[in-house]
């Protein structure tokens, strides 16, 4: 197997010269539920000077199987992701959960297979969550976007704890014209999504997401943002069920200035509600 | 096979080895014979006795002790009397035998005749005990007390109020410094120093503030089972 760079070489140094080749890991939820998040990510990366490639051989990162204890199937999916992305400078996902899966867990999956472990390590080191990549690697300090809204922000667990994504989205949001951030008390507490958890233990998940929805509403913010579509679908679904008017969007949509379409869970063609 | 052999055997089987012998065992024996300090927080570093004493007093107050400072041991009885009067507590104390002894005959209570002073341990009926300490830890406002002929443990727990007499020279920075003094002071007779072993008293109590509980709806209440009040008298010596 030929490798574009020696497997143990460090990732390209921060703030790479020229136009880095970035593989966009779309994530299965964005692909299926909200492609606009993928295009927002694409725009942000291209605006920052990246050459973005979207490998066609990607499906899912394998987390559903991994968290269900099915390592054999996880390895099969992971091997596919590794093969699809290992030739690129970076892998970027609009999700802390999927990026965390690749970065933190792929290498351990192949602990018994040194050759694969090396390839997994190679890809893992180059994998970033979107806002973290923009800020920490590319050094982006300002995005060209405007949204007249008071937003609140939920820190999705994997991004926060596996990848230390906390300041980066806030830093970028602070540059969005017209946007005000009202911090969410308990922003670091899980929303109750947890992948298959939310359907295996719906009652407990309900309690968690109900608490979360109540705290969101109490901030008085008109829009909720987060960096992971799984959590967003869960929180949007609960806010809708409770009849709350809060709009829900992926942070990338706001940073890319792509907030014309309906928010998550809103009818197609509905007036977005935010003043622009 | 005895339970002991079974358990030790199971541990060794899980660890994939037999009993430790030779060099590995020698290293472990060495680790026990000359205990090393681990990471120690910086907060007490670079302080002299005065600085440590001030820090100890601050930390003690943080954990809900009251603190008095007096110039000499002679002033302790009056400080005790004044404290009891201030707090509206009965003018009765039981003192540790250690405070009745000492090179200069112990505390002189003759100038506080209104105080009833008993010497000994506690049967649970006393209002207030007065005890010495072995050391005081500035890092956390912690008192170290050891059990002995003249320092019974009951005095630390049974009375409603506990007054601890701390001499400035007993104040150390981190807890490890207290253990250092403890090992040196209790080195085995005939040994060259603490590395030849030391005698552990039956009880060592580290006490950081008065007794408390949060078991009723997480609301902190003083005086759960031990003393409700812990008053520290720091003596410049």
């Amino acid at each position: 197997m030929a490798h574009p760079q020696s497997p143990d070489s460090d990732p390209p140094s921060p703030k790479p010269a020229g136009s880095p080749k970035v593989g966009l890991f779309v994530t299965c939820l964005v692909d299926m539920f909200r492609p606009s998040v993928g295009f927002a990510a694409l725009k942000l990366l291209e605006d920052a000077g990246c050459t973005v490639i979207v490998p066609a051989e990607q499906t899912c990162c394998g987390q559903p199987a991994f968290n269900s204890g099915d390592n054999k199937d996880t390895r099969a999916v992971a091997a596919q992701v590794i093969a699809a992305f290992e030739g690129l400078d970076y892998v970027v996902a609009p999700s802390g959960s999927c990026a965390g899966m690749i970065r933190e867990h792929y290498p351990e999956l192949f602990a018994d297979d040194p050759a694969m472990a090396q390839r997994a390590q190679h890809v893992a080191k180059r994998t970033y969550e979107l806002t973290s990549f923009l800020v920490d690697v590319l050094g982006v300090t300002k995005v060209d976007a405007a949204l007249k809204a008071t937003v609140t922000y939920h820190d999705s667990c994997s991004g926060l704890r596996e990848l230390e994504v906390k300041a980066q989205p806030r830093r970028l949001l602070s540059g969005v014209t017209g946007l005000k951030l009202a911090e969410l008390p308990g922003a670091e507490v899980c929303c109750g999504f947890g992948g298959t958890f939310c359907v295996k233990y719906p009652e407990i998940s309900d309690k968690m997401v109900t608490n979360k929805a109540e705290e969101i509403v109490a901030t008085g913010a008109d829009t909720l943002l987060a960096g992971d579509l799984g959590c967003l679908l869960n929180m949007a679904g609960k806010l809708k069920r409770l009849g709350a008017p809060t709009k829900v969007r992926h942070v990338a949509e706001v940073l890319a200035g792509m907030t014309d379409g309906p928010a998550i869970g809103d009818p197609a063609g509905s007036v977005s509600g935010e003043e622009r | 096979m005895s339970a002991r052999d079974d358990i030790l055997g199971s541990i060794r089987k899980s660890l994939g080895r037999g009993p430790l012998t030779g060099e590995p065992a020698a290293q472990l024996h060495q680790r026990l014979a000359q205990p090393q300090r681990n990471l120690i927080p910086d907060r007490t570093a670079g302080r002299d006795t005065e600085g440590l004493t001030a820090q100890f007093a601050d930390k003690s107050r943080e954990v809900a002790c009251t603190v008095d400072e007096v110039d000499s041991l002679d002033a302790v009885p009056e400080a005790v009397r004044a404290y009891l009067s201030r707090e509206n507590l009965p003018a009765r104390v039981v003192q540790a035998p250690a405070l009745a002894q000492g090179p200069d005959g112990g505390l002189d209570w003759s100038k506080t005749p209104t105080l009833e002073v008993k010497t000994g341990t506690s049967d649970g009926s006393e209002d207030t005990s007065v005890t010495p300490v072995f050391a005081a830890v500035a890092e956390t406002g912690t008192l170290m007390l050891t059990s002995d002929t003249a320092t019974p443990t009951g005095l630390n727990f049974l009375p409603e109020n506990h007054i601890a007499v701390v001499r400035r020279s007993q104040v150390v920075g981190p807890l490890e410094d207290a253990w250092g003094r403890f090992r040196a002071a209790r080195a085995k007779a005939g040994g060259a120093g603490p590395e030849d072993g030391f005698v552990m008293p039956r009880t060592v109590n580290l006490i950081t503030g008065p007794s408390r509980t949060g078991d009723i709806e997480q609301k902190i209440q003083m005086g759960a089972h031990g003393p409700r009040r812990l008053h520290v008298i720091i003596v410049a010596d």
Partner: protein
Amino acid sequence: MQSTSKQFKDNAHHALNDATLQRALLNVKTGFQEKRAQVVAGLPEFEALRDTGRDIKNHVLANLDFYLERFEENVTANGGHVHWCRTPAEAREKILEICKRREAKTVTKGKSMVAEEIGLNEYLEENGVEPIETDLGEYIIQLRHEPPSHIIAPAIHVTREQIAEDFRREHTDLDPNRRLEEPRDFTDEARAKLRDRYFAADVGITGANFLIAETGSTVIVTNEGNGDMTQLLGKAHVVIASLEKIVPTLEDASTILRLLARSATGQEMSVYTSFSTGPRRSEDMDGPEEFHVVLLDNGRSAMLGTEFQDMLRCIRCAACMNHCPVYAAVGGHAYGWVYPGPMGSVLTPSLIGVEEAGHLPNASTFCGRCESVCPMRIPLPKMMRHYRQREHEKGLNPQKARAGLALWSYFATRPGLYRLATRIASGLLGRLGKVNGRFTSLPLASGWTSVRDLPAPEGRTFHDLYRERQAKGGRA
């Protein structure tokens, strides 16, 4: 203790619908989380100390047999006795034997989770010895005939109104019209009630936070002083402790003490840390006449060398459950055995089997908050995942879940087919959901829609749209 972990879902259902319990659980946040955050912020070395604590325990576990033998030597040299027990039954019998030999009528008890693990109280009662819990929380739940719901705040699930009822029912010698409203009232009443019991106790039983190899000392950490009085005033002192509580030296214990109270209650030090070394000596004015350490294995030695060894670093601070959103939702009793919360979700299947406790490692979102606060850096989510792997390998997970996984895997490893399937699903759901933007119910997704709406897909997949864009020449 009989486990109800198999009924976790039912237990959780009842807990979620118990308004009193839900009110009581609100205290976890203010009582523990905020205090911990403050005290940790006040110690710059806290993160480095976590590394040190982890390293000390790892060193101990790698040399556990050595340190246990040294501990035993030093206990014996100080006139005490060590009793090695493989099983809960052996430990119970040994403790009863000591009580019988001393013709004990009552024993006082300091808080001990290992005593809960071996079901000590019931056993003593069955054999004519009355155990009296002295920790206020333990005392309350003993009156209520309940197990603890938290490892350091056993009565956290009880409100003061409930305690008032219990005290009036049990303390019949007191004025029935007395005031029982403020926490102070309860604390004072329990203090007065328990005073005489300490002195009358034939045996005092405590747990241990540490066993110190170099000195043969047992160490307990309390805020009330109850355990300390239990071991001082009982005529014999029996310590019940599990193997992994050992640390080499006083210095090692000191390091871990810096982590323990901060992680547990948000204190820099708990009020009392008491070291017991052997029975009363000729020069002592007080203290117990006998000193026994009952060392319990109960499956721990078999955890060494496995992917669950790290769990034996646990110092029982409860930070994991204090920060766990699942624990906060359902409380401790739902877990169905002695140890609740994330540490219980790993330890319980290790001690009573994954067949019995399989729900526990599954009932986690893997949010990782437990690991982020664990002073011993135990990778709790990773170990819960290991249990899910074991279940999957043994075929213990539900057939429906296995079938779903197989189907998912079939598509996920065939990108072409996957594209087709997602195109169809996304298109169908997108069209159906266009008007409302969401589904309030959906066949096959009732686990989701039973409690929340499902936002509708936008209608086309990213990959289809992207291919179109590329065909039109790239950047829009």
